[in-house]
């Protein structure tokens, strides 16, 4: 009798689960033009991982779609965020897998919630950093860290660290000449001087050099680094200049080493080699790494479009993940560092995007020690000529931004399970 009762109960439970109205086995988040909100689709996927669910990133399948288990909470999140979902059955999934197997596509399992840190002043509102904007809009959790946390060794707590437009040479992108009297600039300088004193550093360039060294070490020991805008160029310059003074008099009280160019150590850098410093305090550029030089009127190059490369999804899944997009040609956007001259990019670096026919690249990726890094030039993909004092970007007006998708690709990339190499 007991067994019969138990059997009836189990049957009832199974029936109730199977017959739950409207639930299929899987939810497909298409990432082609059928998607209403590409950016929030990343947030829904992140939420799935946070709930302990497994997700799959279907590389090159309908713009790099995501497949999630069909659970009510995810349906709810998708509905709230306006993300298009398509319920799919096991049979549909089998057909999809067959299509993926026969083409330049692959399915990557996402199984871990990446612990994300953004290097930014903790008290700063989130509206002036493209990554903070994107993560806030998509609803992806992150922690803000600044010089204190980096120097206190807290980077090891995170899988993924993002840097935006910080100048790691400590020269404030040479904005000193133009903005030295501006209240926000004065406050920023005083804050950095105070931190430098706290850590026994003589000046801001010395402080930032120490921060850059810790970030380099974070990547070397297995961290993922994503940098944009001026942080790309200045981080490598700071790392290369670990034993030489490259900062102008206005920032540390001493002139740069007259032989600084020759003394730079490019063996320790992530992306660049053989670049030349711009030591004039009157020229708003740190080096010749940037192809566009937006803040040097006589050298400024106009904006074009950049093209994402195609990679083999099965052989090169990392690069493929980083370029998943529903557009392969994207309008360029300025930043303190907009692009990277091909001549100074290390040969081992993977170029993910470049402007056709130009001497510069836009989007780079590489391995360093046990970790890896990605550099994307420019400040804000939806504000191509962003300026100091510009209005913040409202991403609800750009839910299908292909440029912002590149940022979010980097957020989910550390969640992927590494595949064993077929060697």
């Amino acid at each position, binding site marked *: 009798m007991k067994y019969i009762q138990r059997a009836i109960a189990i049957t009832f439970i199974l029936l109730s689960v199977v017959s739950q109205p409207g639930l299929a086995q899987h939810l497909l988040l298409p990432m082609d033009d059928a998607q209403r909100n590409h950016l929030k689709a990343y947030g829904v996927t992140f939420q799935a991982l946070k709930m302990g669910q497994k997700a799959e990133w279907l590389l090159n399948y309908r713009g790099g779609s995501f497949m999630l288990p069909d659970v009510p909470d995810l349906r709810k999140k998708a*509905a*709230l965020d306006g993300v298009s979902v398509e319920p799919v059955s096991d049979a549909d999934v089998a057909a999809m897998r067959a299509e993926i197997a026969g083409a330049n596509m692959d399915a990557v399992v996402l199984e871990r919630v990446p612990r994300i840190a953004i290097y930014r002043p903790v008290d700063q509102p989130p509206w002036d950093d493209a990554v903070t904007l994107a993560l806030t809009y998509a*609803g992806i959790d992150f922690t803000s860290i600044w010089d204190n946390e980096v120097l206190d060794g807290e980077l090891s707590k995170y899988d993924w660290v993002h840097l935006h437009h910080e100048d790691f040479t400590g020269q404030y992108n040479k904005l000193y000449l133009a903005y030295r009297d501006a209240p926000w600039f004065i406050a920023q300088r005083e804050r950095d001087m105070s931190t430098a004193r706290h850590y026994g550093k003589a000046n801001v360039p010395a402080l930032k050099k120490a921060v850059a060294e810790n970030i380099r070490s974070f990547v070397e020991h297995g961290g993922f680094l994503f940098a944009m805008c001026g942080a790309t160029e200045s981080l490598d310059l700071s790392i290369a200049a670990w034993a030489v003074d490259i900062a102008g008099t206005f920032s540390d009280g001493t002139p740069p080493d007259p032989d600084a160019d020759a003394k730079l150590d490019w063996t320790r850098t992530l992306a660049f080699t053989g670049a030349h410093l711009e030591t004039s305090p009157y020229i708003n550029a740190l080096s010749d790494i940037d192809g566009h030089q937006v803040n040097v009127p006589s050298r400024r190059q106009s904006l074009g479009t950049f093209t994402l490369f195609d990679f083999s999804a099965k052989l090169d899944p990392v690069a493929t993940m980083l370029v998943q997009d529903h557009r392969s040609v994207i309008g360029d956007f300025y930043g303190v560092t907009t692009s990277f001259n091909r001549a100074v990019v290390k040969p081992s670096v993977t170029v993910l995007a470049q402007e056709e026919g130009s001497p510069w690249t836009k989007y780079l990726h590489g391995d360093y020690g046990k970790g890896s890094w990605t550099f994307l030039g420019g*400040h804000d993909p939806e504000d191509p000529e962003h300026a100091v*004092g*510009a209005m913040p970007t*409202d991403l609800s007006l750009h839910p299908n931004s292909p440029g912002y998708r590149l940022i979010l690709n980097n957020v989910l990339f550390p969640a992927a399970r590494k595949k064993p190499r077929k060697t």
Partner: protein
Amino acid sequence: MVRRFEVALEMLQLLKRLLYWRAQSSFARTTAGIACLGACYLLSATPVLSQSGTGTGAGRAGGASGSARGSSTAAAVKDTTPVRSEEEAGLVLMQALEAEDRSQYAAAANAYKRVILYTLSTARPDGDRLSMSMLGLERVSAESGALDSIVPVVEQIVFRRPTDPIANMVYLRTLTTLMREDDTRVAYLRWRRAVPDDASPYREYAKLLMARGRALAADTVLQEAVRLMGRTASLSAELAQLHVSMERWSAAALAYRDAIVTQPWLETAALYGLQRAPASARDSVRDALNQGKATLAAARLLSSLELGWGEPRRAWTALAKLPPDDSTFAAWREFAEQTENGRAWTVSRDAWTALYEQNGDLNSQRHAAETALRSGDALGALNLARLPSKSDRQAVAKAMAPTEIAALGMLGRMNEAQKLYDQQIGSLNANAGVLLQRPLVMGWLAVGDLEKARQIISNGELANDDELIGWVALYDGDLKLARKHLLRAASSNTSGNSNLVDALGLLARIRIDQSPTLGKAFLAIARHDSASASRLFLQLVDSVGTAAPALIALSARLSSSLTAQQLRLKIVNQYATSPEAPEALLELARTARAAGDKAAAVSYLEKLLIDYQGSALAPQARRELEQLRGQIPPAQLGPAIHSECNS
């Protein structure tokens, strides 16, 4: 003839020069205008020399230079022959201007230099020609990226003419552009010593510093000027701009207050600059602009600022205290019209009333009464309409009658309104009569006398007025007739009358053709009795089938917030599939947010987004949800100021 042509060209160049200075004074603008007109006149009277082929030497030279343009360019660049006479200097200057117009910058620069060298070699240099050449040289050098090449030339001019303002300005500007900061400061100090009683060096140097974002350095320069020269009005504009850039609002307001007295064209700049003052600093701006004797410029500036800050009452207070004169009346009239267009009825009424009290004119009186009526002050409107006027009695009666009748209607004094109508209607033509009949009909409707209203409509010019006929039918409970006429009225009415839209929306949902209760409910709205209207709508809920939620929604809109909330919850719970349900959820969320209950607001919005994914309100709800969660910048957020990118 040649002389006339030369003069015309010189005038054109004067215009060019003045434009190049980005003329900031009315004098400069006026001079530019005169120069332009003069040049146009002279040129219009001048044959086209190069085509005539019969001109004098200069004309032929001009023609020749035009025909042999390409081949002569290289020669012109290398030509270092000294200029030997005044006539030749004029000719070379013309060649320089022509070369510049053709973008042959090297040739133009060479010619300008030759003119400068000759002019400096004369005993009494022609200052105008020197300035023209110098400015031309600066322009072409900047275009060709060789600005540093003009430094020795301009240095020489400044050495010879240390008080020349144009030379000194060009010198400062060039050194600044070349980022030679120390040399710029030395040049500024030298100019200052040369003209100790002139504010120009301070002003120009401070402007250059501000343009480079060096507000503190500009502040030092201007403070020094004030210390050495006393408080000088000629620096007020620069001081004001500086204070604005440093967010010293009170000081900025004071400086602008001084500046706009002598430089009234700065009023727009002052408005633009001070408008950005945060709410916490606005009282100090008010105090600064109110200091001392009231001036028209300062009062007008403060009034415009207050309007921009959403304070129309304070805006009028700023203007109202001005002593009455023609300029003041003009300012009042402009303000009254502006606020009337902006629907700030009571403030507009006060401004029109003040004008009427000073002038006694009929137009001001009529506007005052109308705006009072629109503000809902029927008694005030009536009193204003009945004040004595300078105009003849008949004209006053004709102008005021529509307002008086409408005011009496709002006050429920329909017998008086009818009497006034009867008195006036005989002397009016058909069009003017309609102006009286409409408010009279609306008055009778408001007191619930449908018969009277119907009578006026049928006897008067309103027999074809679909809107009035439709309303009367609706109040009668004849929904079929009301539907027909109101629909026709809506298609020809572009004013977006919200009552008409509501009524049509409801009539479209209700299938029945007769409903006296519904008529009474709408009549109650017309009588501004929202409580009765709300109650009557609710009475009908059980008898109108699927239109029930529409009636509840309408009733909620007429109810107090607590009752409205209960009614909207009823829609959400009992009529979840009705089109009113998502609307009710959005309203519930907004009410909760306004009450500070963010959690409830989020929950209502989430329900809307999940249960009504296809609703037209979903995008709006999603946006409000994102704002509540801080996922997008707040609606009124200003520019981000911490950016380091200055692309």
